[in-house]
């Protein structure tokens, strides 16, 4: 979790920032999935043979969160493409320099 967050903060390359964001989000998904595990539990399938099963709710929640994560990544990358068109670079410090020159 923290390594993803660290990449978001420390890297100047915008694509790497988005990748860091992804690592950060996915680790939170894993946090949810670990919560749902019941000791000795099988997959949550409605069947007479299965008496003890894991909690399926976090899985469903994370399904939603994955969709949100995909949308965020897509939008972020789309913005980066536009930024490259407009600035000719995807390095944060060079963009900041150009913006300073503008004003």
């Amino acid at each position, binding site marked *: 979790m923290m390594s993803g967050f660290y990449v978001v903060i420390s890297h100047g390359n915008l694509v790497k920032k988005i990748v860091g*964001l992804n690592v950060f989000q996915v680790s*939170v998904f894993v946090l949810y999935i670990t919560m749902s595990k019941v000791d000795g539990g099988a997959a949550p399938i409605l069947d007479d043979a299965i008496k003890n099963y894991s909690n399926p709710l976090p899985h469903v929640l994370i399904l*939603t969160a994955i969709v949100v994560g995909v949308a965020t990544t897509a939008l972020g990358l789309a913005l980066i493409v536009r*930024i490259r068109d*407009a*600035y000719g670079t995807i390095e944060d410090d060079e963009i900041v320099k150009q913006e300073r020159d503008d004003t």
Partner: protein
Amino acid sequence: MLSSLSPHLPAIQVVLPLIAAPVCVIFRSTGVAWLIALIASWLSLGISILLLEQVTSNGPISYLLGNWPAPWGIEYKVDMLSAFVMLIVTSIGAVVMVFAPKSVHMEIPSDRTYLFYTMYLLTFAGLLGITITADAFNLFVFLEISSLSSYVLISLGAQRNALTAALRYLILGTVGATFYIIGVGLMYQMTGTLNIADLAERLPEVAETKTILVAIGFITIGIGLKLGLFPLHVWLPNAYAYAPSVVTAFLAATATKVAVYALLRVYFSIFGMNVFSALPISELLLVLGLIAILSMSTVAIYQNNTKRLLAYSSVAQVGYMVIGISMVTVTGLTATILHLFNHAVIKGALFLALAAVFYRIKSVKVEDMAGLGKTMPFTMAAFVAAGFSLIGVPLTVGFISKWYLILGAFEKDWWLVAVLIIVSSLLAVIYFWKVIESAYFKARPEGAVGISEAPLSMLIPMWVMVGSNFYFGINTNFTISAATKAAKSLIGGSP
């Protein structure tokens, strides 16, 4: 027909703009998209008025989606606070949509305007969803719907800086939302439920555990990022300054307000009072709020882009709301909730006036606005009137919320806080004076293009907004009674 629909109003409120958004894409025409957005906004306004009436006469409404009983299914709940915040969002949306077409047409390339209306409707649906849902995870989903579409709205700005502003907001906003779900996940781990009422019931048993304390921390930071709480506000000034003018007016008046609402919900409806005894949250909020109102008002003085100036002032205004929360009294919360409404109409009016200025002179720099007092008298008069309200001159809404905030401070014997609130209002006079001086006491620069007053389709919504600044500043029955009721239910509803 109408009576068979009325029990489903809470669901329709969210579904209507959500369905209207893809319909805009199907038609791919600017005019039709605008019409759909306009109709959806006004229908939503109608629904929220109906809901507010129902809540006032019959108490909170609970709506079970798909008839799955809570806490298993997702529950929508409309109480006084959510009905009030919903009214804020929908009325701002309705007025902004009337204002929008000319300004949008000028600032956004015509092949993309229908997408603008689509994104606006999605943001609108997301914001309404946050106010209405009674499920902590569902709140995250709506938070992301509204945030993702608002990143797109911001990136539609004409300058290239809009793109970087949108991306920075995207990164920080996603970090904030992820922090929020970490917090919700930890709460779920301890209680096994996501329904807000159910959480409130089960949390006290485990309230002192480290897990819950960590959850409170994550959620506070997560929502703090969204509402632009000092020092988590860094994305806000650029996002507001470079977004298209109409977007700034809409987002400034609604998005941060809804985030404050989410914070109120989490603190008072989920955690209840023990959040303030377990952690020094109220001290933290008080200090951050005070720093926000003083430092951000000071920073605003040095801005020469009026939109940026008002964006910093927005961060300061969020500070007032947070100070109200930190008091943890009915008066303090009333001040916060009142300021939600009041700040929405103030900033709505100010940014609409700026949008009209931008429509005419293609700039909102303070020096470019020189002499506008003569050439655009009605627009600048609206700007000045709303500015008085921002400062807190009596007879305006800004005065009412500051009055309650100071009352709350006196109740707690926080004399210093009351003094600092007044000092920061004086700072508002200074940054505001900069604009007035330029507009009224300087001549139009030599060789500037001749311009005229903004068109009527802009002036009327703008003045409706300014008028409500004064109407609700004089006739305060409605806003104060609604805010007090909401504050009492928040404080009393907790164990």
